[in-house]
């Protein structure tokens, strides 16, 4: 066997049914056992050898067990297993991976969303957006409405002026008549 990871995982004694009977005093040790077999499949072998060597080597990068099977397919026969490797992620590792993924996504949203200024876009400014919290603007309509109101006032003033002018003419005419009468 060339690959050490190929060693069957069932050897890890913490998973075996015989261990289900361990009492509470033994539990910490069993947990320790579990922890060891989680990180290295070698440690089990070392212990089986009678704990002679206490020197445990710790891999810098824990060798996550992953299973991959390479199969050669021949017509009419069973598949030949050419190559098989196993890699198991523990619960904690899976959690870590997901947390990392989650955190990265959150960071990405925050970071890349802040790259663009929503108030500096053309469709916002062109509609009269002025950076306040309001989104609905009627700036154009407001301007037009104000202009019409002004137009109304202009016309009104014109009308009044015309009426006043007519009144003055009448008054002048009356004044002249009075003078003539006198």
């Amino acid at each position, binding site marked *: 066997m060339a690959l050490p990871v190929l060693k069957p995982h069932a050897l890890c004694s913490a998973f075996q049914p015989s261990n289900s009977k361990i009492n509470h005093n033994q539990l910490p040790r069993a947990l320790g056992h579990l922890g060891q077999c989680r990180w290295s499949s070698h440690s089990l072998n070392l212990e089986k050898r009678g704990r002679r060597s206490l020197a445990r080597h710790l891999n810098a990068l824990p060798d996550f067990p992953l299973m991959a099977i390479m199969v050669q397919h021949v017509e009419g026969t069973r598949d030949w297993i050419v190559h098989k490797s196993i890699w198991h992620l523990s619960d904690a590792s899976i959690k870590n991976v997901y947390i990392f993924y989650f955190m990265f996504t959150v960071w990405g949203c925050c970071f890349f969303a802040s790259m663009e200024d929503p108030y500096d876009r053309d469709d916002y400014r062109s509609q009269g957006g002025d950076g306040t919290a309001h989104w609905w603007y009627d700036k154009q309509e407001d301007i037009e*409405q104000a202009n*019409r109101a002004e137009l109304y006032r202009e*016309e009104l003033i014109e009308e009044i002026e015309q009426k006043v002018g007519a009144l003055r003419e009448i008054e002048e005419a009356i004044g002249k008549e009075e003078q003539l009468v006198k």
Partner: protein
Amino acid sequence: MASLPHLHSLSFHSPSYLHPTKSKSPSYQFLTMPSSPSASPFTVSAKEKNPWLDPFDPGEDPGMEINDPFPEGKQQEDPRLPDNPTNPYGFLKFPQGFNVELADLASKLRGDVRRCCCLMSGGVYENLLYFPVIQLIKNRYPGVEIDIIASARGKQTYEINKNVRWANVYDIDDKFPVPAEYTDMIGVLKNNYYDLVLSTKVAGFAHAAFMFMSSARDKVSYVYPDVNISGLFLTEYFIPPNLNLSESGYHMYDQMIEWLGRPVKNIPKEPVPPLKVSISKKLRAHVAEKYTEAGAQKGKYVVIHGIQSDSVASMQSRGDTDSLLPIELWAEIVKEISDAKPVIVIPHEKEREELEETVGDAAAILFMTTPGKLAALIEDSAGVICTNTAAVQLALARDKPCVALFSSEEKAKLFVPDAEVKNCTVIASKTGKLIDIDVEAAKAAVKCLGKTPVFA
């Protein structure tokens, strides 16, 4: 008060402002109308009471008497709480719809209109002819605020109308509106709490439902004669003589005018005001700058409008599609103008090149698309020569001498009913096609136009 006996009563089921002219004795319409298919309400007349609205309404009750809460007749200007300058928070004003409602039941019974919305179908011409209606609403309901919803082209017309408050763009002629815009517009209509919504589109089911969803008090529209369902959504409807309203010419909104200006109680029938157009100082200054640049002087030029073009800005009426003349014919007419400088208005820049080739330096060419600019240009001119475009109406509204070229006598009578009074020379084609128009007659008329005294 209330000298007419039939106007004494006021039914709560059908407010008298809806059907004022009818003094019906209690009838048994509801027994026959809605159930039997033979007696369709639409075959009788548009002025009949709509039995679909309330089948259990037997009409006005002659025995009922209510003391009239409004002896004065017309509604008063908007009642408004006085501003309190001592208020530490300044002038507290709420947006419409959030304020405490001041209108009382009596004003509702009388049919006061505080906010009115007009849904306009058509382009510049149709909107321009609607001006008298707007003025009539303003006169009939003092203090009313009139909003307009029109197509993008039609909205531009309201630059020269002083009586309108808001003008929004929404094309009600669009058969497949964008859903977001459609719902948005319903929201806009609802939020404004209109008392009266008028529509000049001939409504089928869809448009009637759209108006119904505005939840305005009165929904008034033209309807198709054969779509029975649309009247159900409306409080009043008119069946137009022809499906294309514009074909009726200047008096295209007569049915609506008659209903709006109807005599109620001691308010007499509202007279129809003439078409008037008001031009602001800003607009005048802008246009003056433009025509001075083009080489024309105030009061010493003649406006020519009605160049053939596929531009949407040609300001034709929908009722008269044959109303544009090709450039060659215009060139002939332009040659005859000697006293004043001809100013040709083009609806699109692409026409400029061909015009310059045909006409040369004899005329100034101005690119104008909005009715506001055209009105200001006409206002400063000595006269107008045009085909049946909005320019005719603008010239008549501003009392400018005008030579109008029409495709037929009938069209001319429809669109310029009072040509003689209004200093308008009408030249109609004898064949019914504008292209066959008598150019010599046009030339003669144009010469007369140049000689008219100008008081600029």
